[in-house]
């Protein structure tokens, strides 16, 4: 063992320090980015996690309160009974219908087939691009719809990402056409949606590799 480490050893020690947790914030964030982009480095981190994993037995259990309802609300949206906004929406709708019925209009026949509109959540945009995607939510459906700009050129694709706090972006899917509809994945205010330009088939690394084209913050669900 010499005082100067080879680049390979240097990378492995950095992986070890990342797992150990001793790095300062900036170096830590840089290492987290490298995990997503450098498979060798990611493997080195995984091996260190395995090496040091026997220490995990030293963590003692501490009962956690049942926070599952809050977590599920973040992920899957609030249960019906806890959705004041939506209830108010329905109430106003039926209220309106009642008035209409009282006025002798055949509104009720129309109601069952009327699709609920997508409630706008945010618009993904950027100051440097004409590209705009509108994001809407209807029940458990999330729709991302391109309302301005063009699709990615041949060989490229727009990839949608969810960013929660400082966590690495999570891919939600590829937008190959005009729009993409997903099962709702528990958006909450403050989360960020972003579109990056990726090779056809999507990011090869699991993290954005191309330029981020447009972004938007979820403001209110």
């Amino acid at each position, binding site marked *: *063992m010499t005082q100067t*480490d080879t680049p390979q*050893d240097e990378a*492995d*020690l950095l992986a*070890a*320090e990342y*797992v*150990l*947790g*001793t*790095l*300062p*914030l900036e170096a*830590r964030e840089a290492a*987290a980015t490298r995990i997503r982009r450098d498979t060798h480095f990611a493997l080195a981190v*995984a*091996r260190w*996690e*395995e*090496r*040091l*994993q*026997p*220490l*995990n*037995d*030293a*963590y*003692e*259990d*501490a*009962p*956690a*309160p049942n*926070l*599952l309802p*809050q*977590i*599920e609300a*973040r*992920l*899957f949206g609030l249960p019906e009974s806890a959705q004041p906004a939506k209830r108010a929406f329905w109430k106003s709708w039926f209220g309106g219908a009642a008035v209409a019925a009282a006025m002798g209009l055949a509104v009720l026949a129309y109601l069952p087939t009327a699709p609920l509109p997508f409630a706008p959540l945010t618009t993904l945009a950027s100051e440097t691009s004409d590209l705009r995607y509108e994001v809407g939510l209807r029940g458990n459906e999330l729709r991302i719809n391109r309302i301005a700009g063009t699709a990615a050129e041949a060989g490229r694709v727009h990839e949608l990402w*969810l960013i*929660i*706090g*400082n*966590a690495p972006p*999570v891919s939600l899917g590829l937008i190959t056409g005009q729009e993409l509809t997903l*099962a709702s*994945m*528990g958006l909450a205010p403050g989360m960020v949606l972003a579109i990056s330009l990726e090779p056809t088939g999507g990011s090869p690394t*699991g993290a954005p590799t191309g330029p981020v084209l447009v972004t938007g913050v979820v403001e209110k669900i």
Partner: protein
Amino acid sequence: MTTALPMTDDDPIAALLTRIAAQERAAFAEIYSAASSKLMGVLLRILGNRAEAEDAVQEVFTRVWLRAARFDGTKGRGMTWLIAIARNHAIDRLRSRKVQPSNDDGDAVAQLADTSRSALSGLVAEGEARRAVKCFEELDPDRSAAVQGAYLEGLSYEVLAERYGVPINTMRTWLRRSLQKLRECLDQ
């Protein structure tokens, strides 16, 4: 360093993660019951604050749902993967704090060594764990305690350097050399 690949049969957490990757919400509730105490223990130990740990538990399980598809049962056990998410999140929170806890004195070093000794003595001495105990014992006791304090409590180079009364770079070198020795020993 090849060990037998863990099968989901004897790794119930891995089996749950596979179901969660298929968006099965019942499995998500089950993993919360099965793992929340352990992860709460990790978060409390690192963050040292129950309110923040409870906040962090929510964040950690949110990530578990969103990232379950990336779990690879051939690379490690389910609980190891969960604890890595919890530790990483807790340490990110610590490092993001504006003020680092400081002003610890010699007592803190003694305390640190104590908790670390009990950490290892608490390990079930079998297979991998026994080797880990042996490898940590081969290190200088102070350095072994520093490595374990860093891992278990999320102590930064700054805090460790202060506790052991050495410059940060010295502490970093100590730990890097210790990690190299551990790697040699654990990979045998």
